[in-house]
Every structure is written in structure tokens, then in C-alpha cells.
């Protein structure tokens, strides 16, 4: 997991005069599970298609193993793809689907070798015994496994996965996430995974690349991305965040709501205007008299594990996740530990996110709607 395998240098792509990728710089290490994460139209699929060779960047370089491959067509790259809607060959059975890549390899592989490797791949995706089935007889999850087997059987150095689980239901998706991670560790190749589902990205990845509007917002491990978001966009897109206007009074001291709070961040200019992120689970509800600040509960939603409550603090609504029930209209105080604050520099996204005034129970479903996730770049 040390050697660099792929590097994108200043890659730029326009469609009909609209910039979909703006100067992307990205290094991908060998045997890494890297996820391109972002909302529809952020350029993640375009980035994937450039790596796969289905699109050429208008400018910039694509480097694979030290060699520039901008002009190498897809069939000559040691990269295979698992497509969003599987794209299986409906005129071939399961065996022939998986054997497709092996059969066109030159020098020719022996029939015995092909059979052996197809069996191996089927075993890897837990579909042994399905060789003779027609692909149209398979369920969505099974078709997805065949698509993975078909790509992996060629022993590529890199596997590209374009929202491969988008069409599956939630339960199956969770199982497949675990399985994909296992497969990646078993075959030991680089996975580049595209998704708009932040949870999926955090669960599986070694590295997450958060994208928006054709630009990379942040690159980091899942933990870094969650705990140390670069800007309001990342903070809002990964998990839930309350993002409040604040001032960094000095190192370890942030001011908001006219009060100073101790925090752990440092390295900002004195009295620099900043964005404060407070995760909903880092907030403790305390009696009003003990609270650092006080507010009124305006909405409560039962979520099973916890309550999502919306609290109005001087007109700015926060989301708090708590196991204690507070009724609507109750006055509560809150307390936030110093490590509950995360301070971010102001960015173009400041003020756009982090207010829960429009929050409703359906909010989660809306933002998690897989909808046309991968089609945005067409």
C-alpha cells in the first residue's frame, strides 16, 4: 500500500462548454480502496471514466505506473470496470459472461485454464454452480456479483466500480459492502469506487475523495474526513453537522453566540472569522442553568437508536442526537466538550449548510435517494 499506481495531473473536462472537472490532481496508491464521493454532477463518474479510458481529459495527464496513458483505449488498459447497471451480456450464460475477457486474451488461454479461472471467480463471489444459468434469471444482487467476477477474472491491476450497489435494496447493499471489502483484500488490487452514499464511503474506503462541482474538496481517511472536514461542504455532506459562524479568539478559544468556548483547535489568526462545526452526537443536553447556551426544542423525531431533536438557539436551528427524550417546547441547555468543536477556515460554502431550519423526517431519505446518481456526467 505504498507504491503510487495512478496519478491524475491537472485533469480538466468540459461538456458543451460546461466545466465538469476542474484541474483534478489525485494520486492513487497500489492496493488501495479509494472512494470518489460526492453529490450528483460533482464529476466523480467523469473522473472514473477518464481513468477507465472511456473519456479523454481536455487537458492534463493520466499517468498509470509512471506512463502517460491519455491516448490508450480502454481495451488496452489493465483496468476493469464494474458498471452501475451491471451491463452483462444477455446473449451469454453466466460462465460465458465471466469468460468473455479470458477468451479474447492473446496468447490464447487453454479451455482448461479458462474453466479453472471462471470457477475461481465464481467461488470468490459465492455463486458456484451458477455457470449454466442465463443472466436474466438472476436477481439484482447476483447479477452484480457476476459483473464483479467478470471484471476480476482478468486479474486487472485496478478495478473501477461505478455505484455498483446503487440498484440494490438497503439490506443487500450492506452485505455487499462488506463482501466487496473482503474481495478487495483477498485479491489485493486497487479498487476505485464511486458513490454518492457517504456511509458506504466511510465503511469501505482506505481513502475518501470528496468532490463537488468538479473539484476535489478533501482527500483523507474516513476518520479524517469525518473528524476534520476541510470546509462546510464536506462537513455537511459527510454525516450531520451544525455549522455556526464564529470567531477564533485565540488558540483553543472560539467565540459564538457571544460566548467563549474552549476548544482544541489552533493555528488561526487572532479574531479570525471561521466556521464552527459541532456534530449532533457531540452535544450533551443538560438542565438550563448548567447549559453553556440554552434553546427551545422545536421538533422531535424518533429514529430507533436515538432521537433527532431540533433546537432553536437564537434563531439558528441545531440538530442534536440524543437518547434522552425532550418534548417539543421544552427549554434545554447544552454543553459541548472542547473536542466536540471543529474549526474550519471560511470558504465559498460558508453559510450555505449546517442550519436545520428546513429539517424534516423525510430529509434523510431525500438526501439518500440514489435516483440518477451516476448518470449526471453523461
Amino acid at each position: 500500500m505504498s507504491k503510487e499506481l495512478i496519478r491524475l495531473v491537472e485533469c480538466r473536462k468540459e461538456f458543451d462548454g460546461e466545466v465538469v472537472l476542474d484541474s483534478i490532481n489525485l494520486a492513487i496508491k497500489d492496493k488501495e480502496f479509494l472512494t470518489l464521493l460526492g453529490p450528483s454532477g460533482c464529476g466523480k463518474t467523469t473522473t472514473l471514466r477518464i481513468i477507465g479510458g472511456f473519456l479523454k481529459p481536455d487537458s492534463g495527464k493520466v499517468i498509470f505506473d509512471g506512463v502517460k496513458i491519455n491516448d490508450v483505449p480502454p481495451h488496452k488498459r489493465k483496468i476493469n470496470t464494474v458498471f452501475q447497471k451491471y451491463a452483462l451480456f444477455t446473449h451469454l450464460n453466466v460462465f460465458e459472461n465471466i469468460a468473455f475477457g479470458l477468451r479474447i486474451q492473446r496468447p490464447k488461454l487453454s479451455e482448461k485454464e479458462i474453466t479453472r479461472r471462471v470457477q475461481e471467480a465464481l467461488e470468490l463471489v459465492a455463486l458456484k454452480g451458477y455457470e449454466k444459468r442465463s443472466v436474466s434469471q438472476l436477481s439484482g444482487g447476483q447479477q452484480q456479483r457476476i459483473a464483479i467476477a467478470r471484471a476480476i477474472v482478468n486479474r486487472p491491476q485496478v478495478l473501477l466500480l461505478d455505484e455498483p450497489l446503487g440498484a440494490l435494496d438497503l439490506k443487500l447493499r450492506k452485505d455487499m459492502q462488506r463482501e466487496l471489502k473482503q474481495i478487495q483484500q483477498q485479491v489485493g488490487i486497487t479498487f476505485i469506487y464511486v458513490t454518492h452514499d457517504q456511509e458506504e464511503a466511510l465503511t469501505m474506503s482506505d481513502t475518501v475523495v470528496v468532490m463537488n462541482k468538479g473539484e476535489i474538496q478533501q482527500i483523507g481517511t474516513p476518520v479524517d474526513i469525518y473528524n476534520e472536514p476541510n470546509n462546510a461542504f464536506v462537513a455537511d455532506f459527510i454525516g450531520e453537522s451544525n455549522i455556526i459562524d464564529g470567531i477564533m479568539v485565540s488558540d483553543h478559544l472560539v467565540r459564538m453566540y457571544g460566548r467563549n468556548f474552549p476548544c482544541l483547535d489552533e493555528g488561526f489568526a487572532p479574531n479570525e472569522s471561521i466556521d464552527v462545526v459541532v456534530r449532533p452526537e457531540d452535544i450533551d443536553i443538560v438542565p438550563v442553568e448548567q447549559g453553556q447556551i440554552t434553546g427551545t426544542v422545536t421538533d422531535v423525531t424518533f429514529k430507533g437508536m436515538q432521537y433527532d431533536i431540533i433546537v432553536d438557539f437564537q434563531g439558528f436551528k441545531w440538530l442534536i442526537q440524543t437518547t434522552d427524550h425532550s418534548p417539543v417546547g421544552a427549554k434545554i441547555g447544552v454543553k459541548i466538550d472542547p473536542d466536540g468543536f471543529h474549526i474550519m477556515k471560511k470558504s465559498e460554502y460558508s453559510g450555505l449548510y449546517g442550519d436545520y431550519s428546513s429539517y424534516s423526517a423525510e430529509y434523510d431519505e431525500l438526501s439518500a435517494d440514489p435516483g440518477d446518481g451516476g448518470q449526471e456526467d453523461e
Partner: protein
Amino acid sequence: MNRSSAPAGFKERVASVWLPVKSFLERYRRQSFAYPYVLWMALFVVIPIILIGVYAFTSAEGGFTLENFSGITNYIPVFGRSLWLALVATAICFIIGYPVALAISRMDAKAQRIMLMLIMLPMWINFLLRTYAWMSLLENTGLINRMLAAIGVFDWINAMHSGNPNYTPITHFQLINTNGAVVLGMVYNYLPFMILPIQSVIVKIDPFVIEAAQDLGASSRTVFRKVIFPLSLSGVISGITMVFVPSVSTFVISRLLGGSTNMLLGDLIEMQFMGAAYNPHLGSAISLIMMAIVVICMSVMNKFGEGEEQAVVM
């Protein structure tokens, strides 16, 4: 609780009859829209076929006979020529039509619409007129021969043979009244029926499936051979059917472009019903045999497309 146990009154009796009828109508409501067509088919397709069957096995006196079929042996050359010319025309349509269909399906939506319209355009003109037009082009004194004469082609050919005393100078090429002219007529008239079904199938191939094949290492030739062509087979079969069947049974094209010596099955059958050789019993027998040949050809064709959506048989 208080339900009356008295014998069923009038209302109940009506209901006992009407309700099953009503539920039947409701259940088969959609199907009932097809009844007019089913009736039409029964009257004008099924009954005539039965009549053909009856005629084929009876003599002019009305008794059962197989003579009509034994008489057919005289016409084996006509069967052979019909099948052969239809086969050649179908093959040419396929060779011309497939690349056209492929090319059209790769154009953008607007260009596709325009191209399809251009292909359909000749069909807006009456079939007979179009064939007559070919007649006037191919005739010995037709447009093509006159043009060739005008640019001196015949003078040039005659001059080449000027040393040969046995040579008779030519003034035209024999274009009309040849097998070639018949095949030309078939190809010209039926080519759209080859292009359209193939194009409509190729357009529907998921572009990601093609990308998947490229991704797995297939060059564009391999992609065509192993993915696009196999996936377009159902269209090919429909196209072949839609060209072969009318070609094998045509009589207008052979009559107008083939002349009296190049009789095809269609002409033969027509003669038995409308012409001087009036013998509907023999005509019915020939028709039955032709139907059998067509059905056999098509079922063989459909074997190739197994697993894909089945092509229309007729």
C-alpha cells in the same frame, strides 16, 4: 343475521345470471378490444386458408384427390427459381442493409430520424408505380441504355470487335426480363424491411454493454463480432423474414421485370386463379406447398435466434 332465507326473488335471479357475465366482461375487458380483429382474422384469413386446403385436395368434380399435388412436379423449376431468387435478394438485402442499419444506429437521434424517413420515403409511392418506373429505366430503349448509348459505350464495345466477322453489333444491354432485374426489383422494394428491424434492435443495445466489452479487452472488431452482432440477431431474423416471404411469393415484380419466360411461384399461382390456365385446385395445392416451405424456412431461422426475443414468423 336477519338475512332473508326466502326463495330467491326476481332481482336475485337476474343477479345470478348477470353477475357472472359481468365479472367475465370485467376480467376480459382488455381482451375484448381484440375481438373485432379476431373476427376479421377468422373471416378473411382462417376461412380462406381452410378453403385453400379444401380446394387443394379436391378435383373440379368435387371428389377427393391427390392429383393436384402430383401435378406439381411439372413446376419444380419454378419452385427452384422462386426460392433461389428470393434467397439471393434476401442475401443482398442483408449485405446492404446491415451496415446501413449499423451506421444509422450510431448517428444522433435527429440524424436517425431523418435517415429513417429517407428509407421509408419510397414506400409513400405506390408499389406498382415504383416497379413500373424500374421498367422504364431497364427497358432496351430505357433510360439506362439510352444514356449508355449517348456516352458511346456501345460504339466502343462494337469497335473492339470490329475485326470479328461473326460479331453482330449491339445497341443495348439486355437488362429487363432477366433474373437480375427481378432480384433488383425485390431488393429495391424490400430493402427497408431489412434495415428497419435491424436498426431498431441495434439502437436498443445498452451502450454500457458495449463499453463493458471494450473494458474487458475487446477491440472494436471483437465487440462487433461477439456482442453487437449476436445481440442484433433477432432483428436480422425479422429482417430476413420480412424480405424473404414477400420475395418468394411476389408476382408483380417478376411479371413486370422478369418477362414471360421468368415465371415465379406467384405468377404460377396467379395464373391458376385469374389467368388462362384457370385451375384453382392446382393453384391451391401450389399455395399450400409454398406456405409449408415458408413456415419451414422461418422455423429454421428462428432456431438461430433462440434465447433472444423470437422474431415475427410471418
